[in-house]
């Protein structure tokens, strides 16, 4: 009898990483297109378990699981929009990109949009993503009306935030990083728009204090607000952009006929070979200088397309590759208003290790939702990219973690690839409650990710 070698790679095995391209692991990738196929995959689960993966845009190890069956949901791509109520029911493999192509021309926009449209709805719920409107409208989970999910026993369940039977499981799934089951379908409310343009006010601020003061003063007047910070400037200067959907009437007359036209494009592609060290303090300083100067000192009511305002990350395809072969981490934390000084301290700490970050973003969060593992809570959130190869980075980020934790803050799981299990457990005080619900939904412990193992979730 001949035996198959356990060392041989099977055709369906693939190395998976997150968007940061660090810590790859091998998994069996299983494309599914029906609920039955999802159930079959769960029934046949091996010792390493099962995990759903969307477009792999979480930065760390959330959407990978070494040795597991990783379900690829991209074929779960149905979109059904109720134009009279604005409610949409979609397969969880649908991306924001596909959804917006289908709904913007019909006059509807997503209730919350992350910084890239290359995220699936399943991923958006699992990470409970936020956008520029969190300070007024909360995160994605706040807008979801129903989730259909196959639990760890292979049962298809409808989870609903207004149903006493399932609300706990609903909120455990929002922000639950795919560890409560495989979501197959979701229903949420879209917002009506009468044009595909955003009316944008831009303000350039000479230092971090001014950026933060201006945001506290007037964020409430805007639906969307975010600030870009020049992470390499000693002052922490930045550019605040805020706005709302332009109405058809705000458009010049010649544009009104095509007010809902929508055709986003990626303008450039990252070249094939990137030497490590291309991004350094000098190149990023030059980029940041240009970016700061490009912004008008003060401008009101400029009209920008949806993609330019919401999805700046999508203008260069595969931009994650510019950090070179070692990959990168994105450090994103939130701290309460009382601890606003942590923002400046974090920027200085990153500067001190020589971490060049050109996508450094500051934003104010509104109140948290009921999901135990949801990241946003009222206060300030800062996100910065850092190349993984920088010497001394591990220790510097551990020190930052301590600062954030002591201030009552925490890190975003969709971005995390390196925090310690202790840091995580101490900053998400409702972890135990979430674990109890998860254990009901997945009593056999089938849903596993590298992130879950790393953080002992």
């Amino acid at each position, binding site marked *: 009898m001949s035996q198959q070698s356990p*060392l041989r790679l099977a055709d369906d095995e693939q*190395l998976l990483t997150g968007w940061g391209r660090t*810590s790859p692991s*091998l998994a069996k990738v299983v494309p599914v297109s029906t609920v039955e196929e999802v159930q079959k995959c769960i029934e046949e689960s091996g010792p390493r378990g099962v995990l759903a993966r969307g477009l792999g845009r979480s930065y760390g190890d959330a959407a990978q699981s070494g040795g597991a069956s990783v379900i690829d949901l991209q074929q779960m791509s149905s979109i059904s929009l109720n134009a009279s109520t604005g409610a949409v029911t979609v397969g969880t493999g649908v991306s924001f990109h596909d959804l917006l192509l289908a709904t913007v021309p019909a006059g509807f926009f997503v209730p919350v949009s992350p910084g890239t449209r290359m995220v699936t709805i399943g991923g958006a719920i699992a990470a409970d993503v936020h956008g520029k409107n969190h300070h007024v409208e909360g995160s994605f989970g706040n807008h979801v009306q129903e989730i259909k999910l196959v639990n760890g026993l292979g049962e298809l369940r409808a989870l609903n935030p207004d149903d006493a039977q399932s609300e706990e499981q609903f909120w455990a799934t929002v922000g639950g990083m795919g560890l409560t089951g495989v979501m197959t379908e979701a229903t949420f409310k879209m917002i009506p728009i009468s044009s595909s343009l955003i009316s944008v006010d831009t303000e350039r601020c000479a230092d971090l204090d001014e950026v933060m003061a201006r945001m506290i003063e007037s964020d409430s007047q805007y639906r969307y607000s975010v600030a870009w910070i020049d992470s390499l400037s000693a002052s922490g200067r930045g550019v605040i952009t805020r706005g709302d959907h332009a109405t058809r009437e705000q458009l010049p007359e010649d544009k009104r006929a095509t007010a809902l036209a929508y055709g986003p494009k990626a303008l450039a592609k990252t070249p094939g070979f990137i030497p490590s060290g291309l991004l350094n303090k000098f190149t990023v300083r030059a980029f940041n200088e240009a970016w700061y100067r490009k912004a008008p000192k003060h401008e009101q009511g400029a009209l920008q397309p949806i993609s330019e305002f919401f999805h700046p990350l999508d203008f260069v395809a595969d931009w994650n590759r510019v950090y070179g072969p070692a990959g990168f981490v994105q450090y994103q934390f939130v701290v309460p208003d009382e601890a606003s000084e942590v923002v400046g301290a974090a920027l200085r700490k990153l500067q001190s290790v020589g971490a060049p970050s050109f996508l450094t973003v500051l934003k104010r969060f509104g109140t948290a939702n009921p999901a135990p593992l949801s990241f946003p809570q009222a206060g300030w959130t800062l996100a910065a990219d850092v190349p993984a190869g920088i010497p001394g980075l*591990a220790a510097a980020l551990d020190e930052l973690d301590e600062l954030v934790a002591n201030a009552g803050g925490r890190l975003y799981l969709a971005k995390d690839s*390196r925090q310690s299990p202790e840091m995580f457990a101490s900053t998400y005080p409702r972890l135990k409650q979430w674990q109890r619900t998860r254990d009901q939904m997945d009593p056999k412990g089938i849903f596993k990710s*590298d992130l879950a193992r*790393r953080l002992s979730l």
Partner: protein
Amino acid sequence: MNDALGDPQSVLVLGGTSEIALATVRALPRNRLKRVVLAGRPSPARDAAIAALTSAGIQGVSAIDFEAKNTTEHAVLINQVFDAGDIDIVLLAFGVLGSQDEGEANPDLAVEVATTNYTGAVSVGLRVAARLKGQGHGSLVVFSSVAGDRARRSNFIYGSTKAGLDAFAQGLGDALHGSGANVLVVRPGMVRTKMTTGMPEAPMTTDPEVVANIVVAGLRKGKNTVYAPGPLRFVMTALKTLPRPVFRRLPQ
């Protein structure tokens, strides 16, 4: 598994009292290290190794009984270790030097050296590799030796076991290519340890800590082979090209 910055959480040392392996454990980044398993014979040396690592501030150090020559026990042992949780780094560090003269006089002794250094490593190496591939990530570090690069008259019994081990480890690394798991072959020169106490020092003799730092750097960079110290690579390349009559006449 290793985090994004390359910091491991768990280590298995096969040959749990190896000075070079213990130095390697001490040299690893320990911010995330929570489990270190020392596999070796029950002995005061093993107890001392646990105590030393623990007092150096490393958490979760434990021991498990392991005998390289008892290959029939390896499957159960390796499964037990991996079933308790993923292992990020396996150090295959057992081996005996033996005495060339005694081995020539009593071939049974030479067979013992071969069984431990080569047969034992094949048995445990294949089982570890299957588990690393099964978990989809992890590194196997195999401590070979420059003695395996070219067998010398004075220690060819030991040298040939390392040559076999080295070839095995290279092949295993190729088998695992693209699997998320990888093999790092380490070829140290003479290292100042118990094994070499009392022997005359060869040129470029080094310390366990130096080897350890080279291993940790090699792991971080994803290398396949490292020499310790590094320049030995060029010395060995030169030695390997010498014709046998010349090589034979070199001081042994």
